[in-house]
């Protein structure tokens, strides 16, 4: 599967990662190489095979739906690049 710079721009947008224009061509080549290499999986017949969801073959544990933790606003905000009045601060999103 060949990836072109336009696809790199699209995927980078989906992933919310800025890719400088001068890197788009080299990334397109690298991604094409990697995806071309993984294409060998198509040699393997997987008709009727269930996709693995859990390697440990276990059932997810259930617990009572009750609050077990909380009241840690200061801990949670302690690492924020910008916080005010007990909230995270982001650039204005509505005018």
């Amino acid at each position: 599967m060949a990836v072109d710079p336009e696809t790199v721009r699209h995927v980078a947008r989906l992933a919310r990662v800025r890719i400088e224009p001068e890197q788009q061509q080299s990334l397109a080549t690298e991604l094409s190489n990697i995806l071309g290499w993984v294409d060998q999986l198509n040699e393997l017949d997987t008709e009727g095979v269930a996709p693995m969801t859990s390697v440990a073959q276990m059932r997810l544990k259930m617990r009572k739906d009750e609050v077990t933790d909380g009241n840690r606003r200061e801990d949670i905000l302690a690492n924020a690049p910008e916080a005010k009045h007990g909230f995270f601060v982001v650039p204005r999103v509505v005018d």
Partner: protein
Amino acid sequence: MTELTDLTLTAARDRIARGEVSAQELTEAHVRAVEGARDLNAFIAETSELAMDMAKASDDRRARGEAGPLEGVPLAIKDLFCTKGVQSTAASHILDGFTPPYESTVTANLWKAGAVMLGKANMDEFAMGSSNENSHYGAARNPWQRRGDNKPLVPGGSSGGSASAVAARAALGATGTDTGGSIRQPASFCGIVGMKPTYGRCSRFGIVAFASSLDQAGPMTRTVRDAAVMLRAMAGHDPNDSTSVDTPVPDFEAALTGDIRGLRVGIPAEYSVEGMPEEIGRLWQQGVDWIKAAGAEPVEVSLPRTAYALPAYYIIAPAEASANLARYDGVRFGHRSAEARDLQELYEQTRGEGFGTEVKRRVLIGTYVLSAGYYDAYYNKARKVRTLIAEDFRNAFESVDVLLAPTTPSAAFGVGELVDDPLSMYLNDVFTVPASLAGLPSISVPAGLSDTGLPMGLQLIGRAFDEETVLRTAGVMEDAAGFDHRPAFIAGR
């Protein structure tokens, strides 16, 4: 002083227990060794003061008769583990300044057992890499050198700083994490023991997530016995990780009986790959001879889908990574771009500035294979292949008890040799990825030297939750190999 850093973890533990050395003496010797090993760049942060405080507390506990199984043992902690009040970076620029308000379960277990933290070990950014060159803090170096050649070599990755520190006698042991080989490959490259336990054996709580269905913590030490003791302290069920398994943790040290008579050891034909250096094949054959001499029975087995494990891994791991790394948004913790004018730009700029080249590459691959129109062709296909890989192992374990294979297709390579060639770098994981996809316990044991004088490891893979057989066999191989070679660089010498 240097003598103390040459002890094995278990020998140091025994000396402390007998009162022949204090935790503070042992820790001080290692703090000096960490300082003396700075040329290796094995640590992102040295926590010397904290180490001495923890050692003092350890001596106090011992005086009160409350000693734990790792009382006073100084360790390096891979910087992927969150440590309360100590900056935790995952070797990424995007976690600049992040100081966790909580402790990972594995490190909490180690401190409860009495261990002491020397510092946070260098690694590939977000554990993505096989050479430790993808670190925002610069590459860590391998303390080994080729005979008659002082070109710097990589320690392997992603747990490269951990492996380097343990090999250079700057720590008695270190934590690592293994997603596709990140404990075993650096252990092999640095001539130490590294074990990835069964998926679910150790809690992932507080370990910065890379690929959640694969990530598993494990010990990196200089002997198999050290690994057994350290793993026991790390492991255990944790309500904070729903994939940690609620099953008793055995006394792994007691499993080291030295007796593998009658054990059936599978030799998987598919691990003999084209272009593999002849010396790796020779080492493997040597391993077969050792286990045979110890009374075990080598059995040829086939894991027919082995060749498809690596490409499946390089879909599944980036897919999970792209989801896990969505949390780095410049809003809640870590780096935030100063350039952004609106929210969209804040995300894109922050992540563009904060992630390194390999991390971006994998986030893009992951996003691509999960995107509309490709999800079935790539991601679901890879998950089906993963089912088949696990089935291969299940079939093999019907007739054998443990598998023996090389750990890596080569000895350590030079700094800069593969960094511009992602595919060649990925091929380093060809022998370690299959057990990761199947969630099986696996260990690398130093077994011999390459023609150029570099360490090479052999790998044992066991049934799920049968770490004991893996460790027992590893102990026998370790004795047979008698690997007593030392790296060119020893801390403080």
